[in-house]
């Protein structure tokens, strides 16, 4: 079932705490199989946008179409089935501290497993090989039977990613998926996500703080600022001036290492990772 557009947002507005507009008239259309990164300063509305796309938050105004349907026009059962086709990678992985890694990863398929299978798997993990395979892609297969509270922040974040990979969603959403990883591992992990989306022909939409990662792995970049789309361009057309404007109050462009982004003005950027 492939829709003509994976995501379509029209004049999307979300009000938070009454009057503040977290998102203000966002228009965005993404085709199936596209890989799009959203960048922007803190508080620009990136997380709110991802939560709307994950059907965790209902918009105040405007329309949302996800995988060909308006989630809020569906009945509860159909909405649940739609949610099973969407995977959101959270910045802070939502893992219960006392749960084992294998169970946390297998939980990715709760939306498609029947109840009996979910309950049996709680007592004896039914697809250890599947969980191990996803963890192996992220260099974590040796932590299969560790408890989640024994993991470092970076390891927990990758377990959260492994869960969404195991879910095999048609739409992969990622909210700062590598914020707790060192630069090399962050680059590898975003690479795994991009490769997964490419191999299965599914849509990837990720917010990233590190601009260099966005430029290296995504053909299309959306700049978000104050809840509005500042630009929506192919990666080749992003130059330092646009980035400067997007982050103007922060004073410098963030990179993975936290150093200012080095690029000359008005010239197409070459990411240090694009070699």
């Amino acid at each position, binding site marked *: 079932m492939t829709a003509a557009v994976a995501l379509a947002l029209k004049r999307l507005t979300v009000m938070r705490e009454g009057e503040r507009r977290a998102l203000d008239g966002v228009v965005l259309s993404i085709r199936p199989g596209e890989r799009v990164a959203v960048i922007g300063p803190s508080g620009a509305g990136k997380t709110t946008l991802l939560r709307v796309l*994950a*059907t*965790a*938050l*209902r918009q105040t105004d405007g329309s949302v179409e996800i995988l060909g349907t308006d989630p*809020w026009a569906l009945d*509860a059962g159909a*909405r*649940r*089935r*739609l*949610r*099973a*086709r*969407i*995977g*959101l990678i*959270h910045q802070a992985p*939502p*893992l*219960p*501290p*006392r*749960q084992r890694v294998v*169970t946390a990863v297998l*939980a*990715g398929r*709760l*939306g*498609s*497993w029947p*109840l009996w299978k*979910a*309950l049996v798997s*709680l007592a004896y993990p039914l697809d250890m090989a599947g969980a191990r395979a996803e963890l192996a892609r992220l260099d974590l297969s040796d932590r299969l039977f560790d408890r989640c509270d024994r993991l470092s922040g970076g390891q927990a974040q990758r377990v959260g990613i492994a869960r*969404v990979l195991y*879910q095999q*969603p048609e739409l992969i959403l990622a909210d700062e998926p590598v914020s707790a990883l060192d630069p090399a591992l962050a680059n590898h992990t975003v690479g795994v996500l991009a490769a997964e989306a490419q191999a299965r022909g599914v849509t990837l939409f990720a917010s990233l703080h590190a601009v260099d990662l966005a430029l290296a792995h995504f053909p299309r970049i959306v700049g978000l600022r104050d809840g509005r789309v500042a630009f929506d361009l192919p990666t080749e057309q992003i130059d330092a001036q646009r980035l400067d404007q997007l982050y103007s109050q922060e004073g410098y462009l963030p990179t993975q290492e936290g150093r200012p982004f080095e690029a000359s003005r008005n010239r197409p950027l070459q990411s240090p990772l694009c070699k």
Partner: protein
Amino acid sequence: MQVAAALAPAERDPARWARVAIVTLALLLLWPGIRLTEFNPAALVDPANLRVMGQFLGQFFPPALSQEFLLLVGRSTLETLAIANVGIALAFLVAFPLSIATTAVLSQSSLGPARDAGLRRAIRYPLRLFVILLRGIPELVWALLLVRAVGLGATAGVLALAITYGGMLAKVYAEIYESTGTRAARALMESGSGRVQAFFYGVLPSSMREMVSYTVYRWECAVRASVIMGFVGAGGLGQQLELSMRMLNGAEACTFLATFLLLVMLADAVSNFFRRALA
């Protein structure tokens, strides 16, 4: 008074009038209660009462220790323990599904929230009322009612515990779920998981220890409660103790009381052991 007078007005405790007012108000509120309950400490030292009490207490020693009687004590103790155990087990069976059904954060419609979230909340409301009804009436009252319905004996005690403690466990379980964090469960529901699956994968891992700890504590309470319910005819140690007391048989009452004390201390120790082992 001399100290207060010696102090300059600015150095006096500014809260003094408020405190005087609170104490006066408390006394005014308590007085009618004391009158209504006909509380009369003098009754304790009334010579006639003292003589009856003295005779009864005088029979306490030596306690009744005949083999036949000890067998009865043993059987009643086992019955009391059985009432507590079966009562708690049934209460758990009542409480566990109710706690999952009434937890607001496990609601699918609260994601978003969906347009029909208000309606769904309204549908869950009667269930909450039902839980309040279960625990709102004390187990002793249920036992009294059930003794009329199912006759004297342990069945009434077990059912009374299942009802009241079922309601209590359901409420406290639901509170534990909400307090141990529900982000994990909500994330699962956002990716299509059902309510029950989200509970077992997202809530239970973090809540289980607290649930076990509270259930063990409730079991300890159930042991005490099943003795008390015996007084209204719901079987076990309490029923025998009541019979002995009514016949003013001090020796038997003494043995029953001592057994009761031992049993409660034992339950306390078992409960402490489990809860410490889990901490």
